[in-house]
């Protein structure tokens, strides 16, 4: 019997993908290392890791550490590494957009990278505001792909559709949100591991645009700038109800380890 073991991950007791991310970001802090290692191990165990195209843990406190995609930590557009634009403030609590001119380009083009009837967007907001803003997404009308958190005390969960949006009353925007399409006519909205909204609106395409974080990409114009501090975001395929709930548990555990949970 033989064992194939990544010597670095074996030595640290951490998952090799987590180690690769930490090395790319130049992070050596023990608390962050523990948080990321546990997150990756948890996501692989609960099935959500396989559903991800891009994972942005927003750890390390600088634009340089926040830009990396945990799923593929190469410093390239093709790896969906973020490019931050405008007056972001980066700290140990995440990336804070200013609501004036900030967004991050994920380089994830929905037409070429997403699956129309199996897609999700997530955003961990550490800020409680009630304003017309978008936290992640894109649109070329009539196709929209958006998470809009607490806009006129409603949060909207929109994936590859137009009109008849899944939405839910929301009076506190400090939470982990997921917009999750699991079929041609099912979109669910999740807040802190609880399904809070559902829609049967049929999907109608995928925008031929990159997804932005901290605003949305409105036909190549950044729009609806957010002021909600981002402590995690992800883009991927649709998740089962169990996976969506489990993703919250894993992400919240990471935030708690980092003492920045809401």
């Amino acid at each position, binding site marked *: 019997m033989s064992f194939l073991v990544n010597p670095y991950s074996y030595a640290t007791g951490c998952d090799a993908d987590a180690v690769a991310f930490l090395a790319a970001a130049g992070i050596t802090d023990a608390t962050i290392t523990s948080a990321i290692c546990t997150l990756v191990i948890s996501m692989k165990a609960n099935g959500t890791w396989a559903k991800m195209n891009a994972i942005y843990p927003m750890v390390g406190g600088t634009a340089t550490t926040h830009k990396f995609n945990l799923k593929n930590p190469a410093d390239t557009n093709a790896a969906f590494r973020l490019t931050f*634009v*405008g*007056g972001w403030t980066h700290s140990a609590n995440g990336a804070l957009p*200013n609501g*004036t*001119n*900030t967004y991050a380009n994920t380089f994830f083009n929905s037409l070429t990278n997403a699956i129309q009837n199996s897609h999700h967007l997530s955003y961990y907001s550490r800020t409680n505001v009630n304003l017309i803003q978008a936290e992640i997404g894109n649109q070329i009308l009539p196709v929209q792909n958006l998470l809009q958190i607490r806009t006129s005390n409603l949060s909207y969960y929109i994936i590859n559709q137009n009109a008849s949006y899944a939405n839910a009353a929301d009076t506190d925007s400090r939470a982990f949100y997921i917009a999750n399409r699991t079929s041609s006519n099912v979109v669910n909205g999740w807040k802190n591991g609880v399904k809070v909204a559902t829609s049967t609106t049929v999907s109608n395409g995928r925008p031929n645009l990159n997804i932005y974080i901290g605003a949305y990409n409105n036909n190549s114009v*950044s729009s609806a700038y957010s002021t909600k501090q981002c402590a995690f975001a992800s883009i991927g395929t649709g998740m089962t109800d169990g996976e969506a709930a489990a993703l919250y548990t894993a992400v919240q555990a990471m935030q708690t380890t980092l003492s920045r949970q809401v």
Partner: protein
Amino acid sequence: MQVHQLTYEEAQSLVGVQFMPDNYFNPIMDADGNWIISIEEVEQCSIDWVKELPLLNYNPA
């Protein structure tokens, strides 16, 4: 809310320029036709002429 005002030429000169590692300036035009950048960009950059840009009340486009 206040922002910093700049000329069209100054705005164009900042496109593609980092105000700190891995974070780029984003000059935009407000509703009155003024080119502006945010206070956060000015505070976090180390370019002398940018630090001296005048303040302006922001009127979102």
